[in-house]
């Protein structure tokens, strides 16, 4: 049984299509990361998956049943899918009562409610604030209480919109640990948005990339504005004043390019791989991403390069090393 099935779903605002998903299936019990630039439609999609926003057209299936957005019984379905908003808001009462809200609605016994409130506040490190007024918490405190409030409900799926964007380092790993625990226990599925690609990489292999409301496979991390100029009968794009890339002959005078982080060639500066259009860059970050390694090189702009385990071993870069970077034409997509 799949958790969600999306068929030809669209959402329009004032005639602009901000979400356009011909087909998408999300399985039960897993963890899905939703990635994509600002305005890609991530929040919009989460609101639809939480049954809070009615799509303009198309169909949404939940656990193989079509969702009737005009049903008066929709709240029964909503109890299976709890959303933590991008900027959560707490009811203007105590933190504890905020967490108890969903539990009361589910008709739990008073003692069970008290137990779960304690437990979930403890989990996010906010138990000391149980009696505090929810409307006066700091940004990160609010976000953590909102997570506790959702987790306490133990729904089929928890939808989290940038759940750790305002959370401090310590609690970021605490929340990631909670997410992993929920996934491992198979209690609830988790669908979350994030702009932190290493976080997405740490937590799950199932990553959906949205851009302009559409699903596409391309990582969006390497998108840059370019200026285009002509030299030696060839059109060149220039990124961050240093990196030159060969552009297709029909490239517009200025625009944005996406560079596939898996197709960028990188070599030691001394190597014979160095070509005229390659440029030097300094390695400033390396992160494990499953079996691969994510290298970040400063070439005037921060460029992400994903290396296979083997390629990483071969290159063996160190932080601070200068490397030679080359973007072949097939790595480029004009946007």
């Amino acid at each position, binding site marked *: 049984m799949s958790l969600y099935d999306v068929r030809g779903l669209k959402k329009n605002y004032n005639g602009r299509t901000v979400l356009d998903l011909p087909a998408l299936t999300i399985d039960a019990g897993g963890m899905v990361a939703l990635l994509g630039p600002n305005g890609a439609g991530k929040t919009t999609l989460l609101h639809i998956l939480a049954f809070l926003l009615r799509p303009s057209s198309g169909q949404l299936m939940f656990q193989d049943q079509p969702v009737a957005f005009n049903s008066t019984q929709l709240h029964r379905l*909503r109890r299976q899918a709890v*959303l933590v908003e991008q*900027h959560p808001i707490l009811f203007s009462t105590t933190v504890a009562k905020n967490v108890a809200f969903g539990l009361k609605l589910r008709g739990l016994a008073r003692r069970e409610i008290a137990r779960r409130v304690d437990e979930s506040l403890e989990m996010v490190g906010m138990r000391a604030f149980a009696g505090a007024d929810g409307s006066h918490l700091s940004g990160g405190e609010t976000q953590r209480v909102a997570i506790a409030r959702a987790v306490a409900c133990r729904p089929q799926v928890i939808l989290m919109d940038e759940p750790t964007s305002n959370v401090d380092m310590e609690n970021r790993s605490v929340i990631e640990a909670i997410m992993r625990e929920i996934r491992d226990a198979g209690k609830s599925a988790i669908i979350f948005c994030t702009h932190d690609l290493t976080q997405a990489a740490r937590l799950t292999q199932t990553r959906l990339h949205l851009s302009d409301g559409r699903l596409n496979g391309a990582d969006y991390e390497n998108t840059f504005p370019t200026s285009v100029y002509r030299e030696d009968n060839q059109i060149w794009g220039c990124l961050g004043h240093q990196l030159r890339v060969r552009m297709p002959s029909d490239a517009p005078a200025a625009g944005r390019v996406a560079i596939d982080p898996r197709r960028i060639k990188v070599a030691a500066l001394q190597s014979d791989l160095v070509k005229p259009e390659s440029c030097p860059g300094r390695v400033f970050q390396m992160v494990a991403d499953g079996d691969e390694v994510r290298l970040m090189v400063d070439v005037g702009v921060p460029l992400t390069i994903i290396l296979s385990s083997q390629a990483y071993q071969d290159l063996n870069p160190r932080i601070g090393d200068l490397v030679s970077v080359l973007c072949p034409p097939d790595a480029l997509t004009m946007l």
Partner: protein
Amino acid sequence: MAFFIDSFLSAMRLILGADPELMEIVGLSLRVSLASTLLAGGLGVPLGFLIGFNQFRGKRVVITLLNTLLALPTVVIGLMVYTVIARRGVLGMLNLLYTPNAIIIGQVILILPVITALTIAALSRIDDRYRRTALTLGADHLQTALAVLREARFGIVAAAVAAFGRVISEIGISMMLGGNARGFTRTMTTAMALEYDKGEFVLAVGLGIVLLTISLGMNTLLNYFQGRYAE
């Protein structure tokens, strides 16, 4: 100045004297006004939610009509209700005319648009995330409305207080539908109007001061309970 002092002294006399007739009049005024406010609130707040929460064609038309009804004069309400409940009217057999219940009917019609329009206004600035949060945590329509109501309480209480002030100080409907019958349907305002007609201005204002004192008492109570509730 002398006039105000006289009025104030008469008011003191009335209050301290605890004249049984005055007590009766005060009691009736309070009973009728509270009943009207509660009834109109019970109808108007949910109605305001229905209109304010939902997006539908003609919503702005509905709000414009509501705003228009804010100008419904008491004479019109009085006559319309009169026509329906008089001996010769459709509901004549209920013998409602010149009873406190008749006043309540008229006053509910008077303040229903006020409470509804102000509830809509109070909701207009409540962050939509409260509604979404209640829904996503599994609340049904009613539970969601209650959660949002809690957040909008200041505005809605203000609407109810304004409506209460409107009816307790209202004369036209009480006079036309209650009839100002001494001992039956005489309220503070109809008593005031009578004293005014008689030229007894000092007594009229004295009664007005009594009325304001009562209103002050009610609002102080309300303030106290709101304070306790907020804690």
